[in-house]
């Protein structure tokens, strides 16, 4: 990620600090609100999907057309995405309209009308939407909209969108005082009433088991670790060694040596507790998918055991490329089906997201500094731990 000056501004007692990514050279301002999600069951996650689809459709005090025009003047569009641990609401604006964008996001979080017809339309459309094979492999979620009512979505909206559960981040040529004032205004009288009664949904979120076409998606899913895990830099470095870049173990062994796959990558995937390391390969090989997953594991374990100082150096170089030079071949998959990039939108998001996740803003220099201290044996152990703790998951091709 390209380095930026990141400021954290303390605000009123009921709101989280605002993170500001100061980039005077940027021509636009990016405003993002990150809403933290708890662990959810199948119905709640489907409700969250409906919420993400509809919450900006009708908002008191703002016409949708005016807001689209505001974003368009900056060449931007409004984006709302759902991930397992957060809801992301982002809008771009010209610097002169930054406070309007902040207020607008405040209104989306507080004053969405969540119209019944929009919810019904989204519920009807979502199951029929197709995504790319890669996007499906990364998030093979199967939404369960059975018997969801508007009241359920409204309850979830009020339960999630509270000032203490939202992290705001603003990036670009930011006027800190103006942003602070705007967000204070937007949150000052944002009092949390009695929260809707909540009973946990015991049914886990369902996963797709197969995909159309000739390519099966073969995955090794590693053991989840916490967001504040002190070994995080070592684990990210091990993921880069395993599957980021064309010098990685996955590329060398699964593509170049075995010719099993065109695309194969490691992914750091967000969970409500922390992160999950994942290794995904798309393959049209005729080997039964579960056998291929086991063979993939054996091949990678063998590769890691042979790693030497040159593999560690390559991973460190690649990490520098990703975090300081904006390489897109990153394991940080905090977008629905692609990694965070060095765009202003993603830098702004990452600053706020990392604060939510770890208690401190993203700092690539600190992480790279920690990575430079990782020994070869720790690097190999971390990679072997990811592989040995992993379970195979496959999406079988049926084409």
């Amino acid at each position, binding site marked *: 990620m*390209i*380095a930026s000056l990141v400021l954290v501004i303390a605000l009123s007692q009921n709101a989280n600090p605002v993170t500001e990514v100061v980039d005077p*050279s940027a*021509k636009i301002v990016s405003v993002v609100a990150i809403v933290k999600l708890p662990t959810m069951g199948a119905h709640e996650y489907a409700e969250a999907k409906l919420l993400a689809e509809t919450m900006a459709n009708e908002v008191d005090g703002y016409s949708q*057309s005016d807001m*689209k*025009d505001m974003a*368009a*003047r*900056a*060449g*931007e*569009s409004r984006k709302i995405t759902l991930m397992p641990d957060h809801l992301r609401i982002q809008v771009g604006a010209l610097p002169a309209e930054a406070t309007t964008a902040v207020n607008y996001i405040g209104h989306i979080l507080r004053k969405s009308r969540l119209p019944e017809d929009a919810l019904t339309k989204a519920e009807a*459309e979502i199951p*029929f*939407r*197709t*995504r*790319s*094979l*890669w996007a499906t492999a990364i998030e093979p979620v199967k939404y369960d909209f059975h018997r969801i009512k508007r009241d359920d979505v409204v309850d979830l909206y009020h339960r999630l969108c509270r000032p203490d559960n939202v992290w705001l981040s603003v990036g670009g040529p930011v006027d800190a005082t103006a942003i602070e004032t705007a967000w204070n205004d937007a949150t000052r009288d944002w009092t949390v009433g009695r929260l809707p009664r909540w009973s946990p949904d015991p049914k886990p979120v369902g996963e797709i088991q197969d995909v*159309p*076409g*000739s*390519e099966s998606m073969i995955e090794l899913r590693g053991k989840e670790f916490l967001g504040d895990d002190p070994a995080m830099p070592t684990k990210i470095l091990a993921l880069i060694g395993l599957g980021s*870049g*064309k*010098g990685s173990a996955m*590329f060398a062994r699964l*593509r170049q040596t075995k*010719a099993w*796959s*065109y*695309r194969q990558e490691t992914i750091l995937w967000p969970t409500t507790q922390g992160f999950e390391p994942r290794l995904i390969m*798309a*393959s*049209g090989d005729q080997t039964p998918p579960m056998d291929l997953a086991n063979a993939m594991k054996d091949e990678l374990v063998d590769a890691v055991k042979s790693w030497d100082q*040159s593999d560690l*150096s*390559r991973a*460190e*170089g*690649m990490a*520098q*490329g990703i975090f*300081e*030079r*904006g*390489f897109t*071949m990153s394991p940080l998959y905090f977008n629905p089906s692609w990694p965070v990039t060095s765009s202003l939108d993603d830098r702004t998001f990452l600053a706020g997201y990392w604060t939510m996740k770890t208690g401190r803003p993203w700092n690539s220099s600190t992480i790279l500094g920690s990575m430079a201290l990782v020994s070869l044996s720790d690097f190999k152990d971390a990679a072997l731990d990811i592989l040995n703790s992993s379970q195979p998951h496959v999406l079988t091709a049926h084409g």
Partner: protein
Amino acid sequence: MLSLIATFALLSAQDQPPRLRTILDNGSIILVEPMPQEPVISVQLFASAKYVPETTSTHGFRHLVEHLVAVGEGTLDRKLETQACFLQAETLRDAMQIELTVGPNQLQLALDTLSGLLKKPTFTQDEIDKELRVMRDELAMEDDSLMLASAAWHAAYGDAGLDPLGTFDSMYRATPEKLSDVYDRQFAGDGLVIAIAGPVDIDKATAMASALLAPLARSHFPLPKPDRIGKPGRAQAAGFGECRGAIVPGFDSPQTASALAAALAIGSEVPGCFVIYTPTVQNGLVLVGRTDSTNGLGMYIDGLASGAELYGRAKALAREWVLRQLATASGVAYLRGLLLSQGPANRPELMIDQINAMTPKEFENGLTAFTTEHAVIAVGTR
């Protein structure tokens, strides 16, 4: 004395033009654009496809050559990545692109790498067969949006609109001799452009790139064929979704500016839309589509009585679409390099000028280009 030196330094920096284009005797072109605030240098080689257009018998051969060339001598990627540098290659309709992303002091490394890639490799049937196994996976993973786009291109332009990815049916006929011929045509000296953007000295970078390209021979191949002619129509694609293409002339025409603005405006109104346009001097397509539904987009376009309310937004989106690409070293080297590989006078400012000059009437025409009567329509069958 100190202040005098500072003044000279300032003047020197101010005196440098924003960018420098150099045309060498062999017809190859170098473009250098200093961007001192950028953290990386992007060095991009474009090898024009003008001497090797896609045909049904060679469909995808350029793509196959790209795979075989970009791998280098085998350890190239490891060496680059260890130095926090990255190489990626892509086969586009009008050119093959090889990009090296390097740090501020690594321009020589990037050019040395390109020098290695410009030495003609020896292709073997074993290498070809092995790479085809991987490429079969690549083709099988093609996104719905690309399948729709490919179908629309073929419907509009027939065999002159074949996509650059290729098909397995044609690629499996590749032999070392055929690929050797494709390589010679693809990497002819007068079809090459090196575009460099980032924290570089304009004169030094130009001299370094010149030393690389100047020794290469000019082509002896016949001149390119006349421009392709598009027609409205319908096509089916193997994927899911729907897509409409406006048939447009070259990138610097008012029609293309209007169609691009219209596509982006439509995309801002219909949720989940994609817009695809790769600037080309030839007749082409501006595409807008969606892969989450097979209906709704066409109904919206055909039912749009007037675009008056969208005009301002459309103009802003189109302008930003170009400017956004010119905001990073990679984007600058890509857009300028791609256009120069199609002719030495091409530059993105011509496109911006047309967008700025677009009238409401022209914008209405841009929207009309996407209506059933005028557009090429692709619908997914899955």
